[in-house]
């Protein structure tokens, strides 16, 4: 038995078992017999085991340097460190689809374990099996990583050097896929709800899943930004690259869905809207894969052209067809309860949700616009970051305004407490914006500071309201606070998330506005002030690190130790990759890049110093947002593991 044989066997097994699961789900639906549901749940278990086997087979080939299959022959190198070998599984197209299929099987399994509703179970399982079957089918018939190689080489090129340059690449794709795949569960429930005509309850039942997917997506996006910051050597964290956009679109749609789903849960409104939202969010994950794997759009992440593009486009159309077909069939039956007042929690939640939808639309438009221009006018263009920046600034400000106010307002109305809190918040906004302007900040920065203060007051006010409710029941201050924190997991978690978002916005505003970027060529031993820092170039050193060749500059920062920016040369790349030295700081980061050096005698080097304020706080904000999501979903993990009903 070789890895190739084992892998192919596992894929066939997985495909057949998934197909069986789908068949059993359909039978359960037609025959209305719960025994078929039980059998389909078992199919979920065994098909997950099959996917795990395929995953293990590919790892087996990678870790034992077996070049007899296409994937290792094209993407593996014996010289890579062990962690790179392991992560090579998701460093190229075929392997990343295998990771996707494995995670899909995992989610199908977990979702199957806690299905209680006999009416919806067959349709939920059927949808998940359908999605899973697509991925197994792609693996088996379109991009099979286990395709045998007639004359196995003894050494391969290794994965893309950009991916080997940082350990984050072992983590970021997995987080991203956990998020993407997680959206399939609420989508499956939504499809089932439409099929079974039980329009109300699916939102509450999938709340936990939606939040888990949202948490992973958030983590994946922040991890990707951090990777970009540490590896790409340009001192930025977000470039509006098509692949970044492809991950951002589902995040925006999911965020919007989370907010209107709350309104449906509590007030029975926005049923069609929520169904549309989750369909689009799920479709967006497929859309992103299509964009980046088809060669339609050029990007750092894009893999070469291949037959995968049309296949994913077909799947995308199928998802949209199913979603909107069902929606049009049932939209006549969906009736929302009651009207809506704009100045109420649901009114502001709707407003926020619309902003998210607009943002998603803008990102889609900006990403696809080059294709439209090329089709219409024949010009080749790209849409620059300034477009996204200028449109996102006002939309972001609107979001920050709504975000502070919405959780404070009661459902359906405004009460005196909320009115008072709002007046405090708006005063803080006005005061801090004016103060920042007075201190010489630009309008954008001043507004950013004002909105941060506004949201800070909002968080305090909301906490005061929660604690006050327990105080009125006769608790002391501390006891009331603890009870509020322990009992009100959703509002408390949401507050934490909102605070994290406000902090992230502040960090983005400052890092964009006050970035200093300068470069200078220094002789060995020469001292010069670059971007306000006195630097001395001490020496240049070349190192052979086996799988790559490194040139390291030793730079002394007067009074602050030494920094070691590097250039990495990989055998498969004809230009070096910069590995900047980043020194994180509370006020700003020092980001030193070795731009170029004297290749003949090693007597000079060009150094570039980027000093960006508050970048550290962006990563802290990411951590806070994740903690907030975790605070809400954590009680559900134990229950999910037991397989009982989860409500966050």
């Amino acid at each position: 038995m070789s890895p190739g044989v084992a892998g192919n066997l596992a894929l066939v097994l997985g495909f057949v078992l998934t197909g069986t699961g789908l068949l059993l789900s359909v039978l359960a639906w037609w025959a209305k017999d719960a025994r078929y549901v039980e059998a389909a749940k078992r199919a979920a278990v065994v098909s997950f085991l099959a996917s795990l086997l395929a995953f293990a087979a590919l790892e087996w080939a990678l870790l034992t340097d077996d070049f007899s299959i296409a994937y290792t022959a094209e993407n593996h190198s014996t010289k890579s460190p062990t962690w790179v070998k392991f992560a090579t599984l998701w460093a190229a197209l075929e392997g990343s689809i295998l990771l996707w299929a494995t995670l899909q099987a995992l989610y199908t399994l977990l979702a199957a374990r806690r299905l209680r509703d006999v009416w919806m179970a067959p349709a939920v399982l059927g949808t998940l099996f359908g999605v899973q079957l697509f991925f197994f089918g792609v693996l088996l018939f379109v991009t099979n990583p286990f395709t045998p190689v007639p004359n196995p080489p003894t050494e391969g090129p290794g994965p893309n050097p950009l991916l080997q340059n940082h350990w984050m690449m072992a983590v970021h794709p997995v987080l991203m896929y956990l998020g993407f795949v997680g959206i399939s569960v609420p989508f499956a429930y939504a499809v089932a709800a439409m099929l079974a005509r039980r329009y109300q309850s699916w939102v509450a039942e999938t709340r936990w899943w939606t939040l888990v997917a949202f948490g992973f997506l958030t983590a994946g996006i922040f991890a990707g930004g951090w990777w970009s910051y540490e590896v790409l050597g340009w001192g930025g964290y977000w470039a509006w690259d098509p692949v970044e956009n492809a991950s951002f679109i589902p995040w925006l749609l999911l965020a919007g869905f989370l907010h209107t789903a709350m309104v449906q849960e509590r007030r029975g409104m926005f049923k069609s809207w929520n169904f549309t939202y989750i369909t689009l969010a799920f479709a967006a994950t497929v859309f992103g894969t299509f964009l980046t794997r088809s060669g339609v759009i050029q990007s750092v992440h894009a893999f070469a052209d291949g037959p995968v593009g049309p296949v994913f486009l077909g799947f995308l159309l199928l998802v949209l067809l199913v979603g909107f077909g069902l929606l049009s069939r049932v939209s006549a039956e969906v009736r929302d309860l009651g009207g809506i007042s704009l100045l109420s929690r649901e009114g502001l939640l709707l407003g926020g949700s619309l902003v998210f939808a607009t943002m998603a639309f803008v990102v889609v438009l900006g990403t696809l616009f080059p294709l439209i221009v090329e089709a219409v006018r024949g010009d080749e263009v790209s849409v620059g970051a300034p477009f996204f920046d200028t449109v996102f600034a006002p939309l972001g400000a609107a979001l920050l305004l709504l975000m502070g106010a919405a959780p404070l307002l009661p459902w359906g109305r405004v009460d005196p407490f909320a009115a008072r809190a709002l007046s405090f918040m708006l005063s803080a906004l006005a005061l801090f914006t004016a103060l920042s302007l007075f201190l010489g900040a630009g309008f954008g920065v001043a507004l950013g500071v004002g909105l941060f203060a506004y949201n800070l007051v909002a968080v305090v006010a909301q906490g005061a309201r929660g604690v006050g409710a327990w105080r009125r029941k006769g608790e002391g201050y501390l006891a009331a606070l603890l009870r509020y924190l322990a009992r009100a997991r959703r509002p408390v978690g949401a507050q934490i998330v909102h605070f994290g978002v406000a902090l992230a916005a502040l960090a983005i505003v400052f890092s964009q506005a006050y970035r200093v970027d300068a470069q200078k060529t220094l002789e060995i031993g020469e001292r010069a002030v670059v971007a306000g820092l006195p630097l001395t170039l001490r020496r240049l050193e070349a190192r052979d690190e086996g799988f790559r060749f490194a040139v390291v500059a030793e730079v002394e920062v007067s009074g602050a130790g030494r920094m070691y920016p590097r250039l990495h040369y990989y055998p498969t790349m004809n230009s070096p990759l910069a590995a900047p030295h980043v020194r994180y700081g509370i006020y700003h980061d020092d980001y030193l890049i070795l731009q170029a050096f004297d290749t003949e005698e090693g007597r000079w080097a060009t150094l570039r110093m980027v000093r960006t304020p508050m970048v550290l706080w962006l990563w802290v904000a990411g951590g806070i947002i994740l903690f907030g999501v975790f605070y809400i979903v954590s009680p559900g993990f134990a229950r999910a593991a037991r397989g009982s009903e989860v409500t966050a």
Partner: protein
Amino acid sequence: MKAKYWIGLFVVVGAIGYMIWGGLGQSLVYFITPSEYFEEPVRYQGKRIRLGGIVKEGSIAFDPKALELRFILTDGVAEVPVFHQGTPPALFKERQGVVVEGRFQDQTFYGDNLLVKHSETYRPPEEGYTPEDVRNLIREAK
């Protein structure tokens, strides 16, 4: 009551639409070659451009003190003088395919971002560049 909301919605959608439309027009980056520039120089004046071509032999002038780089970019047919503030990247040399982002001012191209073709699969063609090679260069440079 209803009409008020519709007007509000109309104003908001209009404002967003105006913002998007204006923003798109302002921030398009055109991918062109020197000869395409000379076909319609007026059209590209002041616009943000990603210009691709080959560094002409013997045209590189670099002042390391001021970090000012001047060279001539060619696609075999037309030539454009380029001014770039900053250091040339490690692989920058004569007859190398490069992409410069920036704007035309009169006949000179002022670049602020200089990219040497950076793909893991790309190898410069042995027998010199054709206009198609230059096109691919621009498209793939990142």
